[in-house]
């Protein structure tokens, strides 16, 4: 089961000043990069194990195009979780809705998410899904070393480097973009996928209380959004390498001094 999200292509998406949410209409949308790698990881496992790859996304109707792309890449089953009641859900509510939807369609042996979304950049939904589904979670996976129907061994990033871990399935993993190279769909698959309409799951199916979904069910709310302008000094472009290098060296030494450190000389 791959959890994917459609995100604005541009970093400069607008903000609705009344609801403080991202304006999604009129902004080109794309497959969240990390999720595309999650799908690729799932497809590779499927090809080894004769498993089935399902892609689930929560969002507006426009997310059908994300699912069509997933189908063109080879996903077997597609689900769109969409309901006006879900609008404004934070990660707490989103993970609840997604977990309920995953249970509704019969669960999964392995749930793969991207490590974070391009727009929100929280990385919370994967770990929170694992709690909702009462299964373990490993984040920041950079390679899947072995996977059977009941067990997985993978390598994940740590602060210090990496570690290889193994655990029983079912489980949730979140993957980094570096885990694999994504494939491109061929023309025929793309053409075939154009007609696909994924099944929609609404709150009629999930029957979640309105107190736990959408704006009202989200513990966090955005109070205010302000634009940030980075002030760079923009010194004139230097073409004299010697002079440039001396300025870089000086800057490096200044930072070292501020940090109370010295140049390390082994020789």
């Amino acid at each position, binding site marked *: 089961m791959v959890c994917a999200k459609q995100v604005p292509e541009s*970093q*400069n998406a607008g903000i609705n000043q009344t609801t403080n949410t991202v304006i999604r209409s009129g902004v080109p949308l794309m497959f969240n990069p*990390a999720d595309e790698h999650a799908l690729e990881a799932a497809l590779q496992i499927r090809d080894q194990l004769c498993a089935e790859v399902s892609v689930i996304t929560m969002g507006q109707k426009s997310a059908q195009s994300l699912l069509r792309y997933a189908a063109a890449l080879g996903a077997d089953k597609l689900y769109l979780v969409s309901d006006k009641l879900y609008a404004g859900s934070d*990660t*707490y509510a989103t993970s609840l809705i997604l977990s309920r939807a995953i249970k509704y369609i019969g669960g999964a042996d392995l749930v793969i998410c991207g490590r974070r979304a*391009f727009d929100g*950049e*929280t*990385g*919370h939904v994967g*770990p*929170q899904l*694992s*709690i*909702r589904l009462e299964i*373990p979670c*490993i*984040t920041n996976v*950079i390679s899947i070393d072995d996977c059977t129907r009941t067990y997985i061994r993978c390598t*994940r990033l740590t*602060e*210090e*480097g*990496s570690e*290889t*871990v*193994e*655990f029983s399935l079912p489980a949730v993993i979140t993957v*980094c*973009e*570096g885990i694999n190279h994504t494939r491109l769909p061929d023309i025929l698959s793309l053409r075939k996928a154009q007609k696909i309409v994924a099944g929609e799951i609404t709150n009629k199916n999930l029957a979640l209380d309105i107190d736990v979904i959408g704006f009202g069910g*989200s*513990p*966090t*709310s*955005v*109070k*205010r*959004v*302000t634009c*940030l302008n*980075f002030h*760079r000094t923009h010194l004139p*472009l*230097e*073409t004299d*390498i010697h002079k440039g*290098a*001396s300025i*870089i*060296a*000086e*800057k*490096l*030494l*200044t*930072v*070292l001094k501020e*940090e109370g*450190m010295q140049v390390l000389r082994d020789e």
Partner: protein
Amino acid sequence: MNNNSALKEVWAVSQFTNGHTERTVLELIGKAAELAKDLAGRACLILIAETLEQEVVSLLTAAGADKIYFVANDTGGALNEHWAAREIAHLAELYKPEIMLFPSTIWGRSVAPQAAALLHTGITADCTALRIDENGFLVQIRPAFGASLLAEILCKTARPQIVTVRRGVFSLPTMDKERVGEIVKIGQSYPMDQIIKIISSSSRCNRGTRLHDAEIVIAGGKGVGSKEGFEKLKKLGKLVNGAIGASRAAVDAGYASYDMQVGQTGITIRPKLYIACGISGAVQHIAGVSSAEYIIAINTDKKEPIFRYADYGIAGDLHKTLDEVINFIKGERHYELQKKL
């Protein structure tokens, strides 16, 4: 156990692994103490470790901890995220903190959201500023959209208010050795599980300073030209205790490994000084480095977008430039430069 303490508690939660995390712990305690003061409450620390050494207690207390919840764990349990999330959530249910601060490390970014889901409360990732507003709510400020926006987030309806905070965002607290603190020893509530078994781990520490922490980051792009080309960056990095990063293009070209990738699809960094060598400056790359205090770009092509985001740019060959920089730093001139400072 005291469940209905009148004083509000602000918790700092951190893993204790090695020297590297200590700074983060102190930063979190310092901030917790500040917030606790505004709430007229107490700053507390959750300490999961094998033993509780007096030296550590003194340090943490001096940094601002009024109370240390010590969970004795002889199996390095703090590192087990699956277990830690459950144990910490259980403690929070018992002692009902008002606020919980987690480090925005790989560990914290996994444990904190799991704990939040268990506690049915909200969480905000990667806060860069925190304050208490006039209603007593924690205002959680975080960059969004590749750091082009700042969002102020509140968690009004549920408690605790949980956030993760990046290393280096808050300054180190002033140490006060006269402070006194309380220690609460708690038995482990959950048996240590082996649900996730660690087979092996590798450390990149021997390869230089860690990207997350580094105050100086030297990164290479496709313009570096080869895997060998990165050796020059590493040489300079070693001299100045800088970490080495790479752009996605350099990683894709096989010049550098993914764990070195800086940018939106890699690691987001906020060093004091960022030196981009042979990096064109794709939007995704800029998003991951725009919080750097000072950006220097070296590129042969004057028209590359990276120069628009840099404080200082050099249009020229990066290898020649780096050679010169190394000479300056290693050579006699080093002393001249130092005298000038």
